């Protein structure tokens, strides 16, 4: 035990050191991105209160009444110089206080983000994992059968779906299933008539509302997985150790395991990164399906020039990407012995 512990200790130390380095770099990165996004957000042209004033006048208020009613919202706008606003923002940030929303005055940005995040994570996570599992399976098959017609068809389907912009796919799916054949709802998370809770009606309604966004996420990323996996498998198939294994007469199952394990390595990294991107990658799909996740919240915050909410959404996306990068790197270390040992050659 002691001997094993002694052998493992340097490895554990390496991991801890590596993780600490990542965390420090990640923290700095978050600070830098937060600062840059703060400055950019504060310089976005467009007056949020002018639009409010105009809408009150359009509803029949006199200009003076509308001015007074609009002025009641000034308290929710950031005050002071840009530098003072920045210091206030950072001070709040260290206390996990992102301020109050301007578009929903009086409600904390963290509350709004918290409500929206779940509606983004679940569909994107399910969609991404679904497309990953199907994509890599089909990718391996397409690589193995690359000289046959089926391989060509599978690769072509991957190329087509990969080349189709996400919003075009979403529009197509929405047009077919919510308008032409209206069998799915065109917005929302669940039918409000169902009492929220663990009951079949409510859960069914949740699934029904999430189905189209999930399918769109899955189809949008499926092509990429097929192509990446096919390419990776083809590369591995040409490696010397596979030739050696074949010459040694190893069983096909064992060779397949060799191939799959080596081919899937780079894809795990991409998977971890795409999970990080899932916080910000849902904008078009959520907008088209009127699905109230983080992407839709971000669009609405930009439209209403809700600076605090925009800042919060960008921060969340940044943190997610930084964390995903760290996870991807650590994961790669764990699953690829070459990286762990610091060497460039297989042992």
């Amino acid at each position, binding site marked *: 035990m002691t001997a094993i512990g002694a052998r493992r200790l340097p490895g554990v130390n390496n991991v801890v050191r590596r993780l600490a380095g990542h965390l420090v770099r990640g923290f700095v990165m978050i600070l830098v991105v937060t600062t840059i996004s703060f400055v950019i957000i504060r310089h976005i042209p467009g*007056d949020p209160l002018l639009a409010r004033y105009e809408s009150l006048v359009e509803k029949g208020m006199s200009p003076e009444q509308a001015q007074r009613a609009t002025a009641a919202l000034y308290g929710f706008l950031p005050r002071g110089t840009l530098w003072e606003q920045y210091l206030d923002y950072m001070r709040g940030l260290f206390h996990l206080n992102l301020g109050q929303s301007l578009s*929903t005055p009086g409600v904390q940005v963290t509350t709004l983000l918290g409500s929206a995040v779940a509606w983004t994570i679940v569909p994107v996570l399910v969609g991404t994992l679904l497309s990953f599992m199907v994509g890599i399976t089909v990718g391996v098959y397409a690589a193995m059968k690359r000289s046959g017609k089926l391989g060509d068809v599978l690769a072509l389907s991957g190329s087509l779906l990969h080349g189709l912009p996400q919003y075009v796919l979403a529009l197509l799916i929405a047009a077919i299933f919510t308008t032409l054949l209206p069998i799915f709802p065109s*917005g929302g998370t669940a039918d409000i008539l169902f009492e929220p809770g663990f009951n079949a009606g409510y859960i069914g309604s949740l699934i029904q509302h999430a189905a189209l966004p999930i399918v769109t996420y899955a189809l949008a990323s499926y092509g990429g997985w097929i192509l990446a996996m096919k390419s990776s498998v083809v590369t591995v198939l040409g490696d010397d150790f596979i030739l050696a294994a074949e010459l040694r007469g190893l069983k096909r199952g064992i060779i397949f395991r060799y191939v799959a394990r080596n081919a899937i390595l780079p894809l795990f990294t991409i998977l971890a990164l795409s999970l990080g991107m899932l916080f910000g990658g849902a904008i078009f799909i959520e907008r088209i399906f009127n699905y*109230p996740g983080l992407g839709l919240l971000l669009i609405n915050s930009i439209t209403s020039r809700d600076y605090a909410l925009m800042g919060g959404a960008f921060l969340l996306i940044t943190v997610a990407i930084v964390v995903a990068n760290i996870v991807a790197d650590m994961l790669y270390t764990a699953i690829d012995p070459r990286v762990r040992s610091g060497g460039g050659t297989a042992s």
Partner: protein
Amino acid sequence: MKRLAVVAVLLALTSATACGGGGGSAADREGLYTTIDALKPGLDANAPINPYNPKGNAFLGYNAQWLGWTKNDLTDSDQFYPGVAESWKIAPHQSSITINLRPNGKWSDGAPITAEDVKFSIGLAYTQGGTAYALDPSAAGTASDIKIVNEHTIKITQSAKNPSNSFVQGVMQTFIVPEHVWAGALPADFWAKLKLAQSTAPGADAARAEITSLADKVIAFAPPKDVSAGPFTLARMNPGEALLVKNKNFYNAANVAPDKVKILNYTGNEQIWNYLISGQLDNAPFTALPADVMERIVQTSGNGVVQGYSPVGNALAFNQSKKPYDNVHVRRALAYLIDRKQVTKVASPEGGVAALTTSGMHQKAAEAWLGARFAALNPYRVDPAQAAKELEAAGMRKIDGKWTMPDGTPWKLTINVPASFSDWVAGAKAVTSQLNDAGIDAQVVTTADYPLYLQEIAAGKYDIGFWLVALGPSPYNIFQRLYGASNGWQLFGGRLKHVAPGKEGNWMGGPETIEVKGVGKVDPGELAVKLNSAPEAEQKKIIGILAEAANQDLPVIQMWDYVNTQFVNTTRFTGFPPNNSDTLRLTSGVWIQLGLIKRKQA
């Protein structure tokens, strides 16, 4: 793999259960009225049930009540249907209004609705400053005294310093909330502070500042539960929908046909189209839409369209600080070149009618106010020859078939529109196409979104832009669009001043005085302000002069008048207002509470 298949089948079955019901069982859907709230695009389940919060989950006419509901009249904005007020008496010159509540009126929690609730609600309104409640004693049309006459009667007196014709409307549009729920939103010494704030005594400024500082608190106030004076109360919300259930204590509950109301979320017009095409909505207000979508909507079983007056017009507005638009002959030439019927046909075939001319008003309101004088205005019918004469009078030159500036330099006419307004973009393109045909090098430039558009137009960055005009029914509000702050006239503490073009929001840059045919030199801004307090006979006279001024001087060219087009579905409910009903600008919550909507009998 087998386990996965079982899970998939179970999920499919559960989903199918939900699909089959279309949302709830048949019993759940019985008596359900589904709509959208045009005042609340983008529902927010986190928002408080607060009518003062822009995103608050208080839906006007459903669980949020005014004292009265303004009828859609062409000239009179002081006609109302009863809301929380059962009846009211307006004193001459709107010097005061006495409101009578229903003796047996109750909140949804059973507590009586009293004059104290109304007074408390007025206190809240003072913190917001809108409608009839300004802290500035010199502001126009503000309440100076609120007196409880008895438990169910309250009298509100208008300040005599600067009376306004919009006072009564401002009072009637007060949100009424229960004091026993909202008590924490105002300090105990509020009324003493208000009295001080309305005076000129020492400490008045501090008192005003203190009351103004309550605005945030009131806007953010979150009642623990919905206690409503309306026909419904909010039962629950999710990010996409709100469910309201019938308030059994509502005074007219026996005639409230729906048991439940479902309000759907939307963030864009296309979502409303989808709801309408799938027949989900019992009612939806009009939204800009292309002709083919309209066709599909009306093909859906039960769907129909109701139309009426909407005091809103669309116009091409000029920045007269920019050449050559400072020259009235150029503006007139453009009016003679633009075929407004054609533009309207392209831009707003369903929701607009081409403007007969430019008067600053919706043509229906103009006809009602001006009578035969409206027909005497120059209609600016399409007349290329007359347009050429006007351009020549402005010194413009035609070289190789293209109109140029007087010095021969190219004339590039640019129209700005917000990219998100599809009807405006289509309209601007139709206009530039016509102008290009007439030898004017014209183009459309879109701006990313409306907040940016408003900021840039106010900063004087555009030569020409689309602009909403004729925002009535109050004549004062109507002419403020042409001769108000955007054209240099500013009202401070009851005093009017004219600021130079390009300064303090004066982006239209028109002249301070205009020579009006048959009248002489007038200051249109001054006349427009007089509309706020003038008696009806004088209003008529002023409106005549301002309409003539707008018609001659063309600070804008009116393109089309909007038509209030509502979508209704008679599959589940009937009794929707007919065409031109005076209830058409009110929410369907008001139609329901007035007892107009009936369940369809099988």
